[in-house]
């Protein structure tokens, strides 16, 4: 019987012990000792969140297909086990092998959102690995970070040996082969890292020096060795049909946030909404073939026994073979108690028809994401969605029986005024009135409209990366304008308004566009006990404010400043395809309220074409 790292006594005193036992359905359980390279993949949040992440499933499957590699998984221990592990000095371990992370060759940490940074430190700390990369020796694992936040790695650069920029399917084989070769030759850790930095997509922070102007902006960012490249270009998978994909995804014992088969249908997005980082960094859009998706869906369903399948992409309506795929799923699985979930769909005749076939209309809601209340502001952010399309779409849905609507907006967008904010409430009101145009005997009761706003955070590699944010307290004023206006509407009883909190917004804003000076603040906040900052009830803003103060780092420098176009930004050394020139042009067009067509309408020469694949080359 498997021996566990934690005793029964500990497992029976903590919440959800199944988080730490591994052995899930489809777990590979490779022989740790027989492997030439051992790789611990980490999602720095609690197990249920980590198990819902598709990226980890893809890489876990890929690594374990290689005979010489053993890939295990590790997640942040919940606060109860965290306390026990510190008290008893129990080293953090992989869930399958139950072996300490410090015994692995690599620790790969995926960085999906900025608020997980203190959890990264928690994982390193509990693994008994030095938090600062410069303190690590030959006996410690190589710590490598990946995922969207790696596109501005600077605030956490001090904690990582390497970063992988881009899609993980391409360069890991070369990296692991290099590692094996270096180990055989007795190459030093530092030399291995320098050689790794020569691989495409790999960034080794220790080989770059940053200097600053008096005003705090970056003066220079340069390699400190001749064999290190000045810029690092992201990696993408050119052909997403002929690449690895997990046919036997892991199925956890406890309920994960995503308790379903997740099928990624394409990568990237043609729309070019100016606030959206994912849309820019995953360019060019690349579709997986219909046959591949049909086959893969069937296999994943068979191998997991899940009762729901979800199609994942940034904008599923733009997948050219959507109809064929959805019909295939409905025909083959619709009857056998299988739920089909289709997020990210435009609301039109096709999608309504599909949704009515796969969902219980009475329980599901229609989701629109106008993001801005007025057409003027939607043009600024390049969100191509008119009021006419929204009202018509809602109307069709109401005629078909829907009576729940969700509307997503952002507040704090560039050039936004109170008038734009009030338009949010007016739009909801127009939708409500459209509902009540249906004769009473044909309606299903009252309509329920839920309006939800988050606060806009400028992100790297978007046209808005130069935009200033607002002071924390000011965000609530914006929400108040919307709230007051909603309450003035005729159909206010049909509307609910939810808004996000502002403190996390400010912190996330600092991390998103921060530089290396922010690292010491993250370390200080962690030392003061901050972890699980992504969890609203656990985030302690005052401790963060104190940490910034004690480290002499000014939050406002990163958030409130409008950056100048000639400033060197911390992430400028990365080439994501989309050029800085393109982003500057888009920023100017945004301020002038001009829209830009999508990739299929007309190519705008963003620069993604250099990768030689995807929509840029569609006929």
């Amino acid at each position: 019987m498997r021996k566990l790292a934690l005793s029964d006594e500990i497992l029976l005193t903590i919440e959800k012990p199944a988080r730490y036992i591994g052995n899930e359905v489809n777990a590979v359980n490779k022989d740790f000792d027989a492997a030439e390279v051992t790789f611990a993949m980490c999602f720095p949040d609690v197990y249920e969140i980590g198990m819902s992440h598709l990226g980890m499933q893809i890489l876990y499957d890929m690594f374990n297909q290689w005979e010489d590699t053993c890939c295990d998984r590790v997640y942040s221990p919940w606060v109860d086990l965290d306390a026990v592990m510190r008290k008893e000095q129990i080293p953090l371990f992989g869930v399958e092998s139950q072996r300490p992370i410090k015994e692995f060759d690599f620790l790969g940490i995926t960085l999906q959102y900025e608020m997980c940074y203190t959890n990264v430190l928690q994982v390193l700390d509990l693994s008994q690995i030095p938090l600062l990369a410069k303190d690590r020796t030959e006996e410690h694992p190589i710590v490598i970070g990946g995922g969207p936040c790696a596109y501005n790695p600077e605030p956490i650069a001090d904690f990582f040996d390497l970063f992988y920029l881009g899609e993980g399917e391409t360069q890991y084989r070369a990296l692991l082969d290099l590692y094996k070769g270096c180990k055989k030759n007795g190459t030093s850790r530092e030399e291995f890292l320098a050689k790794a930095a020569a691989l495409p997509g790999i960034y080794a922070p220790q080989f770059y020096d940053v200097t600053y102007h008096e005003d705090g902006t970056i003066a220079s960012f340069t390699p400190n060795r001749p064999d290190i490249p000045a810029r690092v270009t992201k990696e993408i998978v050119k052909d997403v049909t002929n690449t690895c994909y997990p046919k036997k995804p892991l199925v956890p014992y406890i309920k994960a946030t995503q308790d379903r088969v997740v099928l990624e249908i394409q990568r990237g997005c043609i729309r070019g909404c100016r606030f959206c980082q994912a849309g820019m960094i995953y360019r060019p859009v690349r579709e997986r073939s219909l046959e591949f998706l049909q086959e893969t869906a069937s296999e994943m369903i068979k191998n997991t026994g899940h009762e729901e399948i979800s199609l994942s992409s940034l904008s599923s309506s733009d997948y050219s073979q959507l109809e064929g795929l959805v019909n295939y799923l409905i025909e083959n699985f619709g009857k056998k108690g299988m739920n089909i979930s289709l997020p990210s769909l435009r609301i039109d005749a096709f999608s309504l028809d599909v949704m009515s076939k796969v969902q219980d209309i009475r329980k599901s809601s229609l989701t629109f994401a106008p993001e801005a209340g007025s057409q003027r502001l939607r043009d600024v952010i390049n969100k191509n969605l008119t009021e006419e399309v929204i009202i018509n779409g809602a109307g069709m849905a109401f005629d078909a029986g829907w009576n729940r609507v969700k509307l997503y907006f952002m507040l704090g967008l560039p050039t936004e005024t109170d008038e734009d904010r009030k338009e949010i409430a007016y739009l909801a009101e127009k939708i409500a009135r459209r509902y009540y145009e249906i004769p009473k005997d044909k309606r299903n009761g009252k309509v329920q409209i839920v309006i939800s706003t988050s606060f806009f955070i400028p992100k790297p590699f978007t046209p808005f990366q130069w935009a200033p944010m607002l002071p924390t307290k000011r965000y609530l004023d914006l929400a108040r304008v919307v709230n007051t206006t909603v309450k003035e509407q005729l159909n206010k009883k049909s509307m609910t308004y939810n808004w996000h909190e502002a403190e996390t917004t400010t912190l996330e804003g600092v991390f998103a566009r921060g530089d290396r000076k922010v690292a010491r603040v993250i370390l200080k906040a962690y030392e003061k006990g901050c972890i699980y900052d992504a969890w609203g009830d656990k985030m302690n803003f005052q401790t963060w404010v104190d940490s910034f103060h004690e480290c002499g780092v000014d939050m406002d420098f990163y958030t409130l400043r409008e950056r100048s176009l000639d400033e060197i930004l911390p992430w400028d050394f990365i080439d994501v395809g989309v050029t800085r020139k393109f982003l500057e042009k888009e920023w100017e067009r945004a301020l002038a309220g001009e829209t830009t067509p999508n990739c299929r309408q007309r190519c705008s020469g963003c620069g993604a074409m250099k990768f030689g694949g995807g929509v840029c080359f569609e006929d």
Partner: protein
Amino acid sequence: MKIRMKFVKTGTLRFISHLDVMRYFQKANRRAGIDICYSGGFNPHQILSFAAPLGLGLTSEGEYADLEVHSTLSSKDTIAALNAVMTEGMEVTGWVKVPKECKPAMAQTAASDYLVYFREGYEPEDSEAFIREFQEFLKQESVVMEKQTKKSVAQVDIRPMILQAEAEMRQLDDNKNLCHTTDRPQLCLYMLLTTGSSSNLKPELVMDAFAGFSGRTFAPYALQIHRLESYADIGTEEQPKLVPLLALGEEIEQAYSDTKE
């Protein structure tokens, strides 16, 4: 048709909850291609119900679930199909057809038997004395304990609910369904206890009672409990007759399909 399934839950799976077990089998049934019936309505679910839930930390080789299926392969083939999609620690050991009128396993369970023994480092040194004390404990006419009911605490005589019990040194490691076994004989208690909605006795309460009687204290998490079997009573009030729940069904020799039932 109605099926009764018997399974083992052991190893590291002692740390998944009863609800997790239910969800686990829902997915395992689909992986194995079991032709299970779904309920009607807008939220169809598998017609699958489990017998007495097993607490977290306990192991068992006598767990039961009843299902409705449209068709089935032979018992042998179905068990093989299910075990091919199981994970270590869960094993299906029985698959029988039960009559339509058969009450659900949960309602039918009248008694269960258990092994209670000690985790590493917790076994008392004075096993001989322990065994003697336990025999004395059982000689009592009545054993009154406070039992927590839904609304209040009641004084209940649990002695009649201990149908059989003994303490002895036993070689436990030849039963592969047990964890915390060693290669030496271990101090072990066997007990057959009344189970059910009207009258239910858990081994933990028996151990609490014994602790009170003998003056011993058992550290938290000292005891490992393993359910051996669940029984129905097919006898009469005067002459109870306990049989394993599986015995109420019959082995399926060949694949079978429901045409009209």
